[in-house]
């Protein structure tokens, strides 16, 4: 399965989105700082492994990979098309095949999931419109 264990994911999100220090995470979870350090290292490595698997499945080269923000940009080897991958906590990687997407009725659940994931990684903060939020997310990934 292309998923990180729940506890590791929790630690990673605390460190990434909330910018919590390892000491504070340890205090909150009631574990040692060493355990948090180990968990963080392993979570980052596993996320990288998941992203690399996705890149291979999509026959693409990695243009950018960020395991602190849970995203990756790929470029397809055959078509040269850009693909945006974001890790959805608790679910796994989500791939966006286009830079612009219409969040109409059919696409709406996908858009909501993508924006929610980006928010949980701290890529985007507040948003009113789903399409604008996605455009902001892609803009931040590309800079």
């Amino acid at each position, binding site marked *: 399965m292309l998923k990180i264990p729940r506890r590791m994911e929790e630690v990673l999100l605390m460190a990434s989105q909330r910018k919590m220090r390892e000491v504070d995470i340890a205090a909150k979870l009631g574990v040692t700082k060493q355990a948090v350090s180990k968990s963080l290292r392993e979570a*980052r490595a*596993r996320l990288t492994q998941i992203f690399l698997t996705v890149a291979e499945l999509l026959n693409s080269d990695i243009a950018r*990979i960020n395991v602190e*923000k849970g995203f990756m940009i790929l470029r397809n080897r055959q078509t040269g098309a850009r693909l945006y991958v974001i890790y959805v906590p608790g679910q796994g990687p989500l791939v966006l095949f286009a830079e612009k997407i219409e969040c109409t009725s059919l696409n709406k659940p996908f858009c909501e999931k993508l924006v929610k994931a980006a928010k949980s990684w701290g890529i985007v903060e507040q948003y009113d419109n789903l399409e604008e939020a996605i455009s902001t997310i892609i803009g931040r990934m590309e800079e």
Partner: protein
Amino acid sequence: MEKWYPLPYSGVPGALSALSMVLFAVSLPLQIYGQNYFTLGLVLFWIGWLMALASAGRNVTISEGRVTLTYGFPFRVFKLVVDGVVEMADLNSLQRGKLFKYFKVQVIPYAVVTFYPLLYVAAKFSLPPIYFLAFLLIPSAVGLSLLIYFMLTFASYRRFIKYAGYTVVSTTIIANFGIASYYNAAFGKPITSDAHALILLILGELLIFLAFALYASLATKRHVILLEDTRGKHYAIGAVDEDAAKELTRKIVEEVMMRDA
């Protein structure tokens, strides 16, 4: 030639490389500004050279889950070890990737060097003599080109180089008419009657074209790979071309970022 080499944009090599630029710029005018200043200019020039050589990217090695960057020529002077890589990006492949976002401090010496002629005028309260102008403009042009390289996104920079090429060619053609007419007015004969002057002019122009072509090819062909570690520090590695960049990114992902999986 190595496929990958560290770029001196961070740590001590970054500071030395930036300082060497400033020293070069300061030393050039000093060397033609009287005997006392000549010696000082020469000393600063050679200190600048030593700093530039000490911060020159030497080698990139990836082993035991870390990236080691070594600097210095002809022997190793500095070593930076990068472990705990959390981000890696091929800046040339990003739509809005630019060096300025990650290495802001590097821009300061480039700006100082670029505006050096203005600083000179401000300090002296007078315009520089004409023979002095080249000494002030050379570092200024180098500083400006580096400033543009840092401030523009790589996609915009490729476009900029293309238009700069058109400008260099068209300016040279226009300048030829100017030079020919100036020569005619000064010596009372066409420049084509003086083989020596004509050959020198053509050689000078060829050198300008060659230098520009070399610079454009190096600047647009090479890729810059950015690394960020867990402490939020950024490091840059140059790759000679796109294939070398792809090989490096893959190696870092597999051997460094995935090490604890």
